[in-house]
């Protein structure tokens, strides 16, 4: 039995079958968590000596574009001391917020900003939730499936406007 299977069994034994669903793809076990208890379980995975997933290798979103549980967050965990990986998933509905894990793994800070940028998923208690790759003025979240690959209005020329100019125009309209 590999290390990851032991961890998965330990998770089910600790938290019960309810919040933890186990599946598998191409030989790698995946764990889907109940969003209400996910943060607690992720914290357990980081700090429990049997699991010890010290490194958050990757954290990203997936948009399945379905009515229920549209988004999926994938936490790719890596244990340096136990030499094993585990993919942990959480399904979310549109508009749902999810607690940040940036206090558990510092790496999550930028990952969560990227997910907010690309999918519009908000994270509760995140220290600095801003767009990271795209411009602050950008409209929409490009990695959503309903966002066209070439953008909404590709041919529109980009007009750069300073904040003072924008305010000046608004005052002019009033007067």
């Amino acid at each position, binding site marked *: 039995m590999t290390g990851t299977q032991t961890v998965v069994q330990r998770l089910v034994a600790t938290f019960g079958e309810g919040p933890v669903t186990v599946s598998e793809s191409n030989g790698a076990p995946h764990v889907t968590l109940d969003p209400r208890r996910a943060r607690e379980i992720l914290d357990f995975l980081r700090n429990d000596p049997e699991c010890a997933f010290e490194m958050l290798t990757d954290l990203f979103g997936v*948009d399945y574009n379905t009515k229920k549980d549209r988004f999926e967050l994938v936490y*790719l965990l890596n244990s340096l001391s136990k030499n094993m990986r585990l993919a942990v998933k959480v399904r979310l509905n549109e508009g749902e917020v999810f607690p940040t894990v940036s206090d558990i793994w510092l790496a999550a800070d930028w990952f969560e900003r990227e997910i907010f940028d690309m999918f519009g998923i908000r994270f509760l208690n995140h220290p600095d939730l801003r767009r990271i790759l795209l*411009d602050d003025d950008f409209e929409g979240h490009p990695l959503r499936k309903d966002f066209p690959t070439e953008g909404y209005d590709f041919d529109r020329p980009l007009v750069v406007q300073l904040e003072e100019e924008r305010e000046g125009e608004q005052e002019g309209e009033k007067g």
Partner: protein
Amino acid sequence: MAETRFMTINMGPQHPATHGVLRMLVELDGEVIKKSTPYIGYLHRGVEKLAEARTYLQALTLSDRLDYTNGLSNNLAYCLACEKLLGLEIPKRAQCLRVVLCELQRIAAHLLWVATHALDLGAMTVLFYAFRERETILTIVEHVTGARLTPSYIRIGGLAKDVPPDFKSMVQAFVDEFPGKIDEYETLLTKNVIWRRRTQGIAQLSAPDAISYGVTGPVLRASGVNYDVRKAYPYSSYDEFDFIVPLGTNGDVYDRYLVRLQEMRQSLRIVEQGIAKLPDGPVNAHVLDVVPPDKDEVQHDMAALIRHFKIMEEGFKPPVGEAYGAVEAPKGELGFYLISDGSSKPFRMRIRAPSFLNLASIPKMIEGQMVADVVAAIGSVDIVLGEIDR
């Protein structure tokens, strides 16, 4: 009592020492850094989104353009993920050639790093020395793949074609002369007092911080953490090669320099072993619906022509599933997470870029350091904005 005021300095996005279009907002108390914020995204092309509109074969070319110092490793990481999805077994010759080429590319990437990093800190001669050897490697890469920076040579199922007959002798010539060249760089830098004063004890990162930030590659190993994807999760028959993973102790700029120089020597050992034991045989898996036929076959065989057309036009359809393929790129762990919905295009391609996380740790590194050390810190991490912004 004088009033204390902080000064905010904007560094970049057009700044020679930021290695691309990185903008750093640095808050200073005199010359001491209080806080710094990196701003990225100036090079964002939406690679992850673009891949969703391309077949698996077409998306391969996007990987070249991530870390442009290191096209072959990027190809390999993408192909490993695809091959996991498809469940392909790669012939030994292709695996061995992949290792040899990726290690050559690692040396080239580290040479570019040592050249520019030394230039940033005022040691110009190293640039000319290192670029001379990098040119030799790029000539080999061009001879084999046809391109210097964007090879797209490692393909799903194997390689684009076999290496030319004089490949072995070209690589052997490089292997013979290169150790002496590394010694030359070491004479210029390792014991150089100015170099040491500018790098030792600068921009330190402790091991627990590095792990928590998800830092990988030479930066993590300079902090004394023994993690190398080639050893931890061997791919492409790396477990059959004999090499050691160099480690640092202090996690400062100097240790990162030492670790990378050692890594070049180890890569050279791998290259040497690789060409010595290079097995004969095919360079592509025999999977008719994934690997396009040889050009020669296409011109003489009707069935091969049809197959070629189908693979290029429609692509192939991996079964529904997910796969993560990771390699130890020169910058750290480069991973591709592919989700297939059973169609010929990836449903989601996620790129885990090592520089993205390595850059996120810079504010922690330079907190409380002098403003002149920002350049040393950014240089020592070896970021490439092409893969950070994707």
